[in-house]
């Protein structure tokens, strides 16, 4: 099918793009990778009157580490993150997530900024970024604003971005010593959205006790979900088998999946339990340097 008509703009700078958003407001949508938006437009589930293409704006795609954070430009493609040696070696949770988004063709176009701003509860980056306690940077007419990922997903397909703001950067805290992470996704077939997916990030101190724990759940709630009660089960505790099982069970309880074409709710809930347990074990292996 074919999208409804729209007027197309290709601004050359972020301020120009922001100006267009201010002008056209609720009738405008931003185009990044387009692999969530254009399918919606082809089905006429979205029909913006104005489309603002961000792809001509220079310097919006980059992957750089500074003293405290990994800074990822919003227009960085999933494929670039998947191929990044820096991400693969130092941010294994993000590498795991990049690996399982959609398929290689979609990953060539889809962007991390577009994915987060789209706020699809089935978007893998949402759960991954919740687990690593990332922040996003929004650029608007009032300047820059840093938004913790924790409050970023406010409802299904709804983020904390104002209508005249553009998500321009994602910032991930640099890993501490003793940290490890993993992202595991169960899907019906290659390229699918998750039946359920879980991202786990944790830190082990010198005595093998858990410090900060981050657990993000994908496609089992109205938004990407942080499993806080599951995190609390492990923080400050030794990650022994019983504790891991309790954390996995807690994550399953916090999820609120619905029955749909990807399976019954109870099945999805149990998959949260299984994937959380596996992701915890994998994250611990990596935290212990067991690769």
């Amino acid at each position, binding site marked *: *099918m*074919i*999208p*409804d*008509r*729209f*007027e*197309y703009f*290709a601004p050359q700078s972020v301020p120009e793009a922001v100006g267009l958003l201010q002008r056209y407001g609720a009738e405008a949508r931003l*185009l990044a990778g*387009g*692999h969530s938006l*254009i*399918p919606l*437009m*082809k089905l*006429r*589930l979205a*029909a913006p*009157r104005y*489309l603002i*293409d961000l*792809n001509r704006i220079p310097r919006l795609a980059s992957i750089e580490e500074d003293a405290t954070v990994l800074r990822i430009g919003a227009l960085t493609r999933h*494929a670039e993150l998947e191929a990044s040696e820096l991400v693969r070696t130092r941010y294994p949770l993000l590498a795991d997530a990049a690996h399982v988004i*959609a*398929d*290689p*063709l*979609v990953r*060539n*176009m889809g962007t991390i900024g577009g994915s987060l701003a789209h706020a699809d509860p089935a978007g893998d980056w949402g759960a991954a970024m919740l687990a690593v306690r990332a922040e996003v940077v929004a650029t608007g007419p009032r300047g820059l604003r840093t938004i913790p990922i924790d409050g970023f997903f406010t409802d299904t397909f709804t983020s904390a971005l104002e209508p005249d703001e553009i998500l321009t950067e994602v910032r991930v805290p640099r890993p501490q010593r003793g940290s490890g992470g993993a992202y595991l996704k169960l899907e019906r077939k*290659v*390229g699918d959205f998750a039946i359920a997916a879980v991202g786990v990030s944790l830190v082990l101190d010198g005595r093998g006790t858990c410090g900060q724990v981050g657990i993000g759940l994908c496609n089992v709630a109205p938004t990407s979900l942080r499993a806080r009660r599951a995190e609390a089960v492990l923080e400050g505790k030794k990650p022994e088998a019983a504790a891991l099982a309790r954390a996995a069970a807690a994550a399953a309880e916090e999820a609120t999946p619905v029955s749909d074409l990807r399976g019954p709710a109870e099945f999805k809930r149990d998959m949260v339990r299984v994937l959380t347990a596996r992701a915890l074990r994998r994250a611990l292996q990596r935290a212990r340097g067991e690769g």
Partner: protein
Amino acid sequence: MAQVAHPAAPAVPITVTVNGTTYRHAVEPRTLLVYYLRDTLSLFGTHIGCDTTSCGACTVLLNGLAVKSCTVLAAQADGAEILTVEGLARDGQLHPIQEAFWLEHGLQCGFCTPGMLLTALQILQRHPDPSDPEIRRGLEGNLCRCTGYQHIVNAVRRAARELQSAPPAGAD
């Protein structure tokens, strides 16, 4: 979901180089790249298979990146270089990837094949000596209903060997 019909919008001028030839057109903003290739440039080798960005029959190389052209606007391709299946053979000589699909029976009905060929090129650009798992992973965005994929994998493997030993002049 309301039915909307927005008013006509200004056409977007685009300059696109496809298989080495440069074209200039003014396109309706909503024109998808696959329709531009087929309906405006009469390059019918790129197929439309699914309408849900699933099947990959529409795969082309856009500035060297394998993309689903049904999910890219023609406007986004302004200034770009595109390779479609029609651009693979040179002077009547099949590209090694096409030869390999022929020799390994990597197609039956042929509907997915153009997309498979372009994606195979991307796989081999990134992994000149790919393992079978790497080939299969690389093909995840391209669906085939006929072959069961094994002969497609064999074809890509064979093309990898051919390209390693004798890359064609001007190969992507």
